[in-house]
């Protein structure tokens, strides 16, 4: 069925108000239906056009709109549609219902529709009588209940049930008894309005049939009795997991109901116990009704449950912030010892949602859990925990098991926790434990260890970490020299390229124009003179990057800089260099160019990283001088040089002793 049409059909029965009055009481004048906010005039105009379109789907939508917003301007066109004998009987029936809602009474010449040849119009007339018709309705209904057409009879029964409640049972009972082939929507409606225990029990049976459920929900959607909620929950409990569409319809229905009724229904459902009921209640709580008062009953119910899926559903519900997970701390903590690792991991995630809890204390035993996902969950939770809760000075011991794990993901995560929560007191123990990784061949573990140690290290010791990984750490740099947006400066020969004299100072130029986004009021591209001199710097990034912009005068954009590093070797050897930088570089080794690379911005990251990996060069005995020319147009600006042996082991090339 057309999706839009389905929505309209679901909504149409809502056009009338939900009324309640005893069978023998005088029928009061129907109050004005609840009216949605006044629609925009453009919407009304569009709907009037739709009504005249001849397309019954568009017409149905327009009728629904008129009834919902009580658009009196639509009454004349609705009446015309009703009178149009060329139009289909179903859409004319909808017009009759809409006209009645607009006029808040049965339309003129109503009896004509009660006895119309088309059953669709008679059924619509019966529907109108749910809320209109006054004292005459009862007599009209008697006729309709004997109608030859089944749909008309069932609609009449539903109308009768709405008007007479439990007194309608005598009529509704035979129509809905076991074995009758009744139209589910109208049967459900009749049973729901009747509202007796017997009627509701029968409705429950009807709703438990997946092939009837959708129609039943359509029939009862506007019947907002609290007695209906448990029936819907029960229907959900027995519905197979694969019935996604029906699960969705149930949730949509429950969403429309009064929150108090829903919470009360869920409470009773939990109290009734049983895996299915508890699981259903927990899932509905999670999605629709996260009421704190349901937390304790759910938790108590879960203590008697063995089914893993039910425990999972319950824990997810208890873990959402609105349920106040901290109130269930003990329960979550107990689940840390559950035999199923999935439950243990879930318990950790729930604990991570508990405010004010020291996870470092609670999760300590989980560091040595035999299951990788559990340890991963625990480390992930610690990463989101306040660092102040971490054991100061003994964090490495605390993380001993994951740091030594055979699983590289766990080891990398443990390093991240160390970086996140460690203090300077943890640096020496961490260095003792992780230095092997810095000197190892696994780049992922090396970089995570470097990141952790970089966070903990005193600023003066980061250079050591960098050297251990094979990066050149001590540099003497100078800049900035003028560049432009075509990178012309990269080809220009500036004084440091001609001769390296660390005592020399040079007149150079810079411009503000290249800064990303511009520099307010700083002027345009007019170069400004300034004197530049050599400066000694140590790499202060644990990943080995020499930040040019951070170590040279601003602005760092449209700039060229030079960096010199000396490496000492006891004897000649071949090494493998990996050189990278942002934007680009040219590298001389002992006066000869060994690498040159420019990059174009990566469309995704917008970064302009150039890289020359695996460059084999021969270093001589004694001092070897690297000169790097690095240029930048805009954005980040850095260079990095790393040396390894043929097997990928880092070489520590410290500067020769002075």
């Amino acid at each position, binding site marked *: 069925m057309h999706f839009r049409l389905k929505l309209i059909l679901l909504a149409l029965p809502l056009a009338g108000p939900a009324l309640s009055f005893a069978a023998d009481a005088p029928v009061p004048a129907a109050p004005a239906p609840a009216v949605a906010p006044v629609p925009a005039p453009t919407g009304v105009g569009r709907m009037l056009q739709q009504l005249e379109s001849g397309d019954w789907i568009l017409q149905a939508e327009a009728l629904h709109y008129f009834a919902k917003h009580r658009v009196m301007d639509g009454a004349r066109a609705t009446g015309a549609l009703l009178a149009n004998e060329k139009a289909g009987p179903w859409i004319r029936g909808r017009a009759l219902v809409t006209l009645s809602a607009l006029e808040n009474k049965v339309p003129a010449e109503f009896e004509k529709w009660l006895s119309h040849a088309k059953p669709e119009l008679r059924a619509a007339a019966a529907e109108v009588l749910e809320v209109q018709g006054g004292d005459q309705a009862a007599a009209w209904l008697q006729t309709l209940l004997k109608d030859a057409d089944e749909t008309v009879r069932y609609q009449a029964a539903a109308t009768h049930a709405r008007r007479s409640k439990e007194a309608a049972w005598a009529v509704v009972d035979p129509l809905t008894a076991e074995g009758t082939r009744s139209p589910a929507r109208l049967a459900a409606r009749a049973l729901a309005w009747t509202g007796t225990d017997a009627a509701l029990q029968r409705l429950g049976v009807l709703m438990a049939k997946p092939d009837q459920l959708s129609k039943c929900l359509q029939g009862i959607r506007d019947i907002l009795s609290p007695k209906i909620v448990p029936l819907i929950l029960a229907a959900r409990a027995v519905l197979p997991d694969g019935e996604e569409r029906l699960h969705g319809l149930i949730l949509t229905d429950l969403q429309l109901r009064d929150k108090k009724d829903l919470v009360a229904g869920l409470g009773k459902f939990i109290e009734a116990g049983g895996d299915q009921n508890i699981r259903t209640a927990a899932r509905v709580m999670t999605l629709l009704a996260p009421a704190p008062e349901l937390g304790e009953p759910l938790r108590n119910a879960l203590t008697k449950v063995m089914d893993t899926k039910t425990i999972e559903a319950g824990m997810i519900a208890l873990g959402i912030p609105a349920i106040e997970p901290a109130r269930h701390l003990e329960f979550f903590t107990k689940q840390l010892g559950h035999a199923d690792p999935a439950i243990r991991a879930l318990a950790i995630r729930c604990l991570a949602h508990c405010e004010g809890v020291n996870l470092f204390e609670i999760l300590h035993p989980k560091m040595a859990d035999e299951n990788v996902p559990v340890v991963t969950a625990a480390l992930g939770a610690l990463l989101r925990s306040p660092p102040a809760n971490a054991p100061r000075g003994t964090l490495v011991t605390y993380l001993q098991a994951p740091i030594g794990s055979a699983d590289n993901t766990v080891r990398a995560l443990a390093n991240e926790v160390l970086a996140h929560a460690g203090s300077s007191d943890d640096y020496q123990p961490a260095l003792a434990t992780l230095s092997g990784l810095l000197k190892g061949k696994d780049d992922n573990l090396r970089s995570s260890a470097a990141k952790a140690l970089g966070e903990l290290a005193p600023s003066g010791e980061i250079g050591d970490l960098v050297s251990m990984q094979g990066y050149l750490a001590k540099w003497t740099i100078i800049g900035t020299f003028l560049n432009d947006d075509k990178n012309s400066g990269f080809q220009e020969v500036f004084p440091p390229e001609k001769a390296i004299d660390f005592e020399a100072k040079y007149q150079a130029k810079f411009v503000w124009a290249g800064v*990303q986004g511009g*520099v*307010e009021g*700083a002027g345009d591209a007019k170069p400004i003179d300034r004197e530049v001199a050599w400066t000694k710097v140590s790499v202060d990034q644990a990943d080995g990057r020499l930040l040019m*912009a951070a170590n040279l005068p*601003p*602005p*760092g954009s449209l700039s060229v800089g030079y960096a010199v590093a000396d490496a000492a070797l006891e004897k000649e050897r071949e090494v493998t260099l990996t050189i990278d930088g942002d934007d680009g570089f040219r590298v001389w080794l002992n006066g000869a160019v060994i690498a040159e690379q420019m990059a174009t911005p990566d469309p995704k990251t917008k970064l302009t990283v150039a890289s020359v990996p695996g460059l084999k060069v021969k270093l001589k005995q004694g001092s070897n001088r690297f000169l790097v020319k690095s240029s930048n147009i805009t954005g980040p*600006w850095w260079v990095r040089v790393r040396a390894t042996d043929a097997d990928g082991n880092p070489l520590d090339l410290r500067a020769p002793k002075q």
Partner: protein
Amino acid sequence: MKLFRITNIYVATLLVATFLTASLQPAKAQDGPAGEQIVGVARLTPEVRASITKGLDYLAKEGVQKADGSWGSGQYDVAETSLGLMAFMLKGHVPGRGGRYGVVMENAITYLINKGRSQRGFLGTPNNHAGMYEHGLAVLALSEAWGQSKNPAVGTALRAGVDIILRAQNYQGGWRYTPEPTDADLSMTVMQLVALNSARESGIQVPDTTMEKATKYVISCQDESSGGFRYMPGNGEVGFARSAAGVMSLIMTGQRNHKSTQRGLAFLKAYPDKKFEKGYPRFHYAHYYAIQAMYQAGEADFQAWYPKIAATVVSMQAPDGSWSGEGGAAYATGASILIIGVPYRFLPIYQR
């Protein structure tokens, strides 16, 4: 007492409360050659001293301060009143005491308190993009007045004002135009950070996490290559005024030696000298923050900076003692006094 107020007000208005400790020493002013007064590290020339006095006299004039204790032309009265009030405190005047100025200050305090009372603690102008900025300035002014004013309602207004700031911090750690945790920008964040820091120094409890998150937000606004600061992270131009604000707030929160602070200072110094010229955009806003940043940058930087900005500010003063600027006469006058009055900051309290 007066000397203590001087030190305290510098902490407040000049936003370096981090350095104020229980070991405060009253500062000593000395007479220098040719009538100059040496205060702390810089010399207050007779011209600057006269300029400050004329400015305060202007603010204290009947008719300039309105009957309700406020200054301003109606649009940004809270901001103008806050700055005006702080200008008096800068020189050590005490609310409620010391004759005419004391009354003027007490009236301004009463105005701010009444503003808070009538707006459930919010001190800014409602439904105004500058509302939260005004709120921060007023919290700053009240936190400095607390303990000095005899008005017992200062503490109540201050606590309510701080609560609003704490509740309005957004997920990034910053603040924006309205007292709600929506988005954030650097300018508004610095203002609230400064206010919170001052309130904290006054004894109001402010969580560490609030300050840390705000500091991180400020750093996230720094441009990686130039070291200058943008209005929002990665968004818009780098600017002198916003860089001055960013650097000063980092210094104030104890990040004086942070690489971001040092790079920001380098940016401020390298920025063209047009920043000292009369009519430079957001002149008072920029230099209100910049002068404090430069003071912390070190003796040489401050000595190179202060005479240039002081000369410009003094030259901009109108014959009636006022200054004019983007935020109104009282705003410009208050800010001008706060800029050129920086040398009143006494050593050894302010450790570089």
